[in-house]
């Protein structure tokens, strides 16, 4: 495999890792506060639909993004009501939210567009288009030279190839997702909010007796989770792809959950876990590459299942132990 092919695979990995990363960080906020969220999938899906639909009507991807975040946050509020206010079973709530999103998106899509549960394709500003970084070779250069972009890049030096192929040319949401990692780290470990958030996931009674509201902290975390899931969903339908199709999250919410466990609920590890799982997905699209590199035919099904298998192995504690926040999934009932 040559350097350029490697760059192409990594480029695809980054693009596929982005929704995972956003959803994974979303889950991180929620679970660090003690609210388990297996409804990441549903929130992403709802956001994917509403952002695509509104982007289609408004012709503006950012307006679509807002709508997607709004839909995701609405579901997050339902999860908050169930798990915080009414102290219900957080897992069951997550399951319900996944189905609610799966059903509602198709129902509304059918009602609005009558195209079998999809939105019309998004074009132009209704999508998040790639950003060309300064000095990178991009479509404008290709247009100027009147030659295919791939040819221009193939002729460039390795550093320029690396810069143009892998670093440049992603949509703004990709860079946003990457920036969310250090931001989350900073918020969690360097601010008062982060201290309280981590505390409420470990021992809510300690937070409560210290005079801080457990309910509001957890709602804040669940809402943050909603916002990030919303961005993840919008990215899926209006950056990675051009429009919404039924069930388009395709289990990404669960892969994000797996990545979160894999990352042991830490933001920087989450980045690596998501890039790894993104790589698996990229390779799933190009099974020929693995065959060329290791000389063995690897089943695409195995690649698809690898994140899940790895997570089970991690959960089983055979390779490093994943210990969730102590108060995970437990509603806080005030008692002495």
């Amino acid at each position, binding site marked *: 495999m040559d350097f350029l092919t490697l760059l192409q695979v990594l480029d695809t990995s980054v693009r596929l890792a982005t929704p995972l990363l956003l959803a994974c960080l979303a889950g991180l906020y929620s679970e660090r506060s003690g609210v388990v969220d297996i409804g990441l999938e549903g929130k992403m899906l709802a956001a994917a639909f509403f952002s695509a639909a509104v982007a289609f009507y408004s012709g503006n991807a950012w307006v679509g993004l807002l709508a997607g975040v709004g839909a995701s946050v609405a579901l997050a509020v339902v999860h908050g009501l169930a798990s915080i206010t009414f102290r219900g079973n957080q897992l069951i709530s997550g399951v319900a939210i996944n189905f609610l999103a799966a059903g509602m998106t198709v129902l509304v899509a059918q009602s609005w567009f009558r195209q079998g549960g999809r939105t019309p394709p998004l074009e132009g500003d209704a999508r998040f288009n790639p950003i060309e970084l300064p000095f990178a070779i991009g479509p404008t250069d290709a247009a100027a030279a009147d030659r295919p972009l791939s040819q221009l890049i193939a002729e460039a030096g390795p550093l320029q190839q690396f810069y143009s192929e892998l670093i440049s040319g992603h949509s703004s949401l990709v860079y946003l997702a990457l920036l969310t990692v250090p931001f989350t780290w900073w918020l969690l470990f360097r601010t008062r909010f982060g201290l309280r958030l981590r505390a409420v996931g470990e021992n809510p009674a300690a937070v*409560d007796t210290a*005079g801080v509201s457990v309910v509001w902290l957890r709602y804040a975390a669940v809402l943050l989770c909603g916002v990030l899931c919303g961005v993840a969903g919008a990215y899926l339908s209006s950056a990675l792809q051009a429009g919404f199709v039924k069930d388009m999250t395709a289990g990404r919410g669960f892969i994000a959950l797996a990545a979160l466990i894999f990352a042991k609920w830490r933001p920087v590890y989450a980045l690596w876990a998501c890039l790894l799982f993104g790589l698996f997905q990229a390779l799933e699209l190009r099974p020929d590459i693995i065959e060329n590199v290791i000389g063995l035919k690897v089943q695409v099904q195995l690649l698809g299942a690898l994140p899940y298998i790895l997570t089970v192995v991690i959960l089983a504690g055979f390779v490093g132990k994943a210990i969730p926040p102590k108060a995970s999934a437990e509603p806080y009932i005030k008692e002495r």
Partner: protein
Amino acid sequence: MTAPAIELKGISKAFGPVQANKDISISVQPGTIHGIIGENGAGKSTLMSILYGFYKADAGEIFIKGQKTLIPDSQAAIRAGIGMVFQHFKLVENFTVLENIILGAEHGAMLNSSLSNARKELKHLAEEYGLNVDPDEVIENLSVGHQQRVEILKALYRKAEILILDEPTGVLTPAEADQLFRILDRLREEGKTIILITHKLREIMEFTDTVSVMRRGEMTATVKTSETSPEHLAELMVGRKVLLRVDKKPAEPSETVLDIKGLRVVDEAGVERVKGIDLTVRAGEIVGIAGVAGNGQSELLEVLGGFADGTGEITMNGTALPLTGHGADGQARRAAGISHVPEDRQREGLIMEFAAWENTVFGYHHSPEIQNGILMDNNGIYTEAEAKMQRFDVRPPDPKLAAKNFSGGNQQKIVLAREIERNPDLLLIGQPTRGVDIGAIEFIHQQVVNLRDQGKAILLVSVELEEILSLADRVVVMFDGHITGERVASQTNEKELGLLMAGITDTSAVANGNGGNENSTQEVHADG
């Protein structure tokens, strides 16, 4: 006279039909240690929770330094200068001491400045009150005593003027308890006001300036400690002069039933809790194990009952019992003739959601006489449960009622009926009267003595010295996983046992060998 540091007027609080606090008024002078004593369930904790903003009182007023103050939540309590040290600490275990101290009382939104401020402040507090703790140590690596210090530091860091401690010595070794009281003395000297909630008369008598007694939700008296006596306080606590002397003949022990040699138990966290003990229990005697909670007694019972692993040798009626694996589970123990009334009846002895009748075979559900082919003989179990509940005077005598709907005493009777009527060779019984009303205590004690008189062996574990002294024939004291002494119950006293419980084996100064002094009155007055 200065305004009281804190004054409660006419506080009432009901939980459904239960009146937890009835028209309570109390006034605490600044710079004093004020004790609140009462049995479990007397309403002490509810009252303090109201003061700390956890519950809202149905009626009544709170005055802090003469100012009427509303305390709707913990935040308000902290603002009013109230700090609380709960019985179960409210610490984030994987945070450092410093992080725990600033939690909720940070200076500004950034952590760094908060942490450096707190570090300075902590150094200052440590010097002023002798409260030394490493600020960068993680909580889970600290001893219980040090964790409690962190709780006190948390309160002081929040500029608390009034410090409430709820049963602070329950989990401490005697040495740690002494250190705690030295710290409290120091705080009092500095002008802080301390409210000490306890059911231990000794602590009240030794360390408080004034004491209030609670009984069944009411404040029965507030007196100067120097003007009262333990006997008087006990009487106020239980409402009548109780002399629950257990009516029993001298024991007539015969052959050895249980023989323990070199038993060691390591708990799940990897801490050795029982450190090589030897113990025998003979037929026809009650052996009482005394000790501060957490000195290995619970683990001893768990190994004997078959729900913890151990190493060493245990023989029962001459046959060795396995200490690990399938052969050492509760089923095997029951088959070997051991019955077990566990320390925590709600979490271990009963399934709270099950009906009483289902609970009457819990642990014995494999017994052949209650099977009907491959099914359980539910009708038979029900009929037998009805009869059992009659015999043990369980009220209400309704086998269909879920266990959670019975009072503590009646729950205990259900467990007792199940375990005693199995006709065991050895009965293990832990904290038999914890959370049990006075009326039922007498009945429960009598049942245990009757079993002894039928020639059964009984191993009793209790943290209530009075109970041990009145019920046991032989007393074994455990401290830090070791047995520090063994005494004949009728020839020892609370003081001597107290020294043994603190790990001091030289008791010649207090042992008088001729049947105890005035402290060994076999009253049951605390923690009914």
